[in-house]
């Protein structure tokens, strides 16, 4: 496999984590424009722990996920009191606040005689754990792929469980769910924390793949795309967001067939799908049809 294919596949994998975190909130009935913030929290936390404090990447990833979960839980506490568009706007505002905090973050330490660490708008260079441990791009793609498969597997298990039915019930009709005794607010807070952890995992992997991060990496474009991928791919299964990422990064971008017009095509695709298939290509009806056909 050449460097280009490796890069495209790794990016598809990395983007899938943040798209899945947006999807998780969507099936619980909440539209977040702010998942990029928790992706950024993971990227910065993981990078600081490996580059400045010498933590091994797996441990740093776990810590970053915990921090991502905590961050989104704290944001969700006040914002989940809002509904619909107001919640979406609040998540976007929170994400912009996070990005500005990254711009103000200066956490420099001398490593082998050289200053390293986040330096505000100058970014954070030298996240070199992967490079220093001799992990080749092909192996890194394997790590991203295995982690993504584990996450998707977990989604599939949850979606077939009582918890999955509860989440979809809350997403479809929160009043009805509350009427049958479900603590809607508590479940949504749990979902928010899980979504934060998932986005943070993607962020850690991204930071170590890229070796460099900066606040602008985590602006609204990333949030809008991750949400769009979930909506395009479909809300019927966890494969939906992956399909969305694959369509944009894997087909529109990589083939260069629409070079220069990709964003127009992508925006048009989102608009058309929202009209004709508001719950995406792999919506609940399509997933049911596929299950019936192949079971």
């Amino acid at each position: 496999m050449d460097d280009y294919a490796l890069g495209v596949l790794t990016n598809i994998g990395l983007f899938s984590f943040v798209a899945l975190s947006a999807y998780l909130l969507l099936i619980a009935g909440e539209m977040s424009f702010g998942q990029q913030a928790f992706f950024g929290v993971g990227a910065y936390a993981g990078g600081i722990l490996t580059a400045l404090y010498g933590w091994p990447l797996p441990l740093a990833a776990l810590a970053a996920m915990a921090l991502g979960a905590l961050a989104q839980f704290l944001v969700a506490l006040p914002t989940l009191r809002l509904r619909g568009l107001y919640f979406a706007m609040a998540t976007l505002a929170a994400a912009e606040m996070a990005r500005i905090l990254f711009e103000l973050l200066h956490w420099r330490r001398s490593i082998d005689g050289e200053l390293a660490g986040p330096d505000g708008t100058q970014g954070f260079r030298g996240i070199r754990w992967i490079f220093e441990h001799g992990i080749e791009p092909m192996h890194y793609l394997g790590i991203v792929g295995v982690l993504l498969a584990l996450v998707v597997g977990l989604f599939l298990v949850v979606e077939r469980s009582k918890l999955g039915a509860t989440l979809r019930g809350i997403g479809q009709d929160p009043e009805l769910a509350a009427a049958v005794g479900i603590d809607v607010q508590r479940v949504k807070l749990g979902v928010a924390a899980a979504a934060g952890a998932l986005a943070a995992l993607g962020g850690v992997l991204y930071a170590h793949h890229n070796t460099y991060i900066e606040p602008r990496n985590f602006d609204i474009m990333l949030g809008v795309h991750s949400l769009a991928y979930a909506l395009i791919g479909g809300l019927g299964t966890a494969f939906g967001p992956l399909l969305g990422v694959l369509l944009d990064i894997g087909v529109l971008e990589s083939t260069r067939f629409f070079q220069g017009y990709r964003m127009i095509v992508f925006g048009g695709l989102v608009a058309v799908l929202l009209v004709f298939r508001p719950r995406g290509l792999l919506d609940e009806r399509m997933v049911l049809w596929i299950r019936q056909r192949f079971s």
Partner: protein
Amino acid sequence: MDKAAFFLSLVLAQTPQADLRCVPTGEDFVYDCSITLTRGGQPLEGADVTVGADMPSMPMAHNMRPAKATPGTKPGEYKARLDLEMLGEWAIKLRLDGPVRDLLVLHYEFDSKGASPSKR
């Protein structure tokens, strides 16, 4: 010079430094670039240089095909053609193998005239 500054200068002497100059080819978003690599003030020759690029404002979404740089005519000079997707700021990633193994990330603003280091 204090001790810290002395050690810093020693480290910087070992860290490869890169400079990039690009000119448009006439084809949309395609640039011919010249990369100058130095280490400790001396030209770094014989390196295997692969050039990649990513847009900081849209990470992971623009996948430029990595270009293998070829040695130029001057010591420490390497040539590569970059086929970008649009104008704007790009993070140019240089992967060095051979006598020195390293990863360098440079930020350049690409416009119709060429490329210049990003102002921050």
